[in-house]
């Protein structure tokens, strides 16, 4: 548990096992974990822009999903990001949605990390 915000932090979600981590079977730590989360939030934001939402990292352990009208939800992992985005946007977060895929094709090329 985080002593400051009283958030329960669980074990690492499978998506946070980076490619090197998949080799060792251990969770990323320190700078690698931080950089991985920053990269992940950057890519998730490219998807969430379609829903009028954004996500940011919080304390290297949680995510904050925000809507355009100031709504904010703290979540622990990617599945919960999609649940929060749906509640804020009132739309189903579906990667098979042709409208989402069309919108992603119109996005500018991502900036390099």
């Amino acid at each position, binding site marked *: 548990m985080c002593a400051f915000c009283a958030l329960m932090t*669980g*074990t690492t979600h*499978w*998506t*946070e*096992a*980076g*490619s*090197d981590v*998949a*080799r*060792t*079977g*251990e*969770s990323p730590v320190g700078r690698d974990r931080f950089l*991985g989360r920053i*990269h*992940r939030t*950057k*890519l*998730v934001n*490219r*998807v969430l822009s379609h829903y009028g939402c954004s996500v940011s990292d919080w304390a290297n352990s949680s995510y904050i999903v925000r809507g355009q009208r100031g709504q904010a939800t703290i979540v622990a*992992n*990617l*599945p919960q*990001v*999609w*649940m929060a985005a749906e509640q804020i946007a009132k739309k*189903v*977060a*579906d*990667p*098979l949605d042709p409208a989402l*895929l069309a919108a*992603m*094709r119109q996005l500018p*090329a*991502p900036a*390099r990390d």
Partner: protein
Amino acid sequence: MVAYNTLVPVFVLTGFLGSGKTTLLNRLLHHPSLVDAAVLINEFGEVGIDHQLVERIDETTVLLDSGCLCCTIRGDLKASMLELHGKRARGLVPRYQRMIIETTGLADPSPILYTLLADQTLRHHYRLGSLITTVDAVNGLGQLEREEESVKQVAVADRIVLTKTDLVTEDAVEPLRERLAHLNPSAWLTRAVNGDIDAEILLQADLYDPATKGAEVLRWIEAEALRSDETGAAEHGHDTNRHGPDIHTFCIVHEEPIDWTAFGIWLTMLLHSHGEEVLRVKGILNVRGIETPVVINGVQHIIHPPMHLEAWPNGDRRSRIVFIVRGIPRARIVESLVEFNCLGGVPDAA
């Protein structure tokens, strides 16, 4: 962090009513190499179990916020497993080396898998071994036609055991065998007569055993390659196997290396919105930036911890992902995966 290979492997034994689960279990428990197994059963049936470490679990469930039945914590199962672990640690029960959970015949095995993988305490003591499904050779075909749970039990299996094959002719078994192989081509399919079976393969080799995981993945790939050769379809985008109106199996072969971060975003989003329709997903990935393969394995919303292999099983370095889905066209999944894999750009082209 607890070393994964020191955890007690848990084997889930499921199968429709009367399909021979308890008979099989009894035989397995008398195998010399399996006397050190603990057994949890949902109900004591007509067939008694003669084993020194058998506990009954009563079903109490906690439905999580997602509202999906597969994402359900089985509180009874958790309590039973932790109680047994505590007794084992204190020396009150034999130091069992594996656990077998026998489900009820009507059970959807997904909540059991979810409980094992998602519970913060259990995952420090146990790991999933294999999911074994018994199918009755006499009634299996009809059950697969009529009973949704029966189809699901087969779709999520790692091992399928055909039982009662001595009660029907070989010609009668063949349509069922073909149906099972098409429904879940990468599951290991075998037969048991009065429960007689190779216990070593059934309960000792599994995907997360360091000694056997390479062979297990190779078996998936070979099963898929054989099916592709037979149908000529897996490479060409057809839905090769249809099971009734909407359940079908297909393999996506992805030529470009996979962006691991983008893949995690895509798969979590797919399982969030379609998890109840994705009965099974498993595959071997060529992840951008590393030389050796990563194995993924999931049932509905539940994904096992990704696993790394020391080498490519057969020299083919393309990513291959097998899906068993209900009602989702292959083309839509491929289109979506390709788009998401470009989410972070393509470093080589930049």
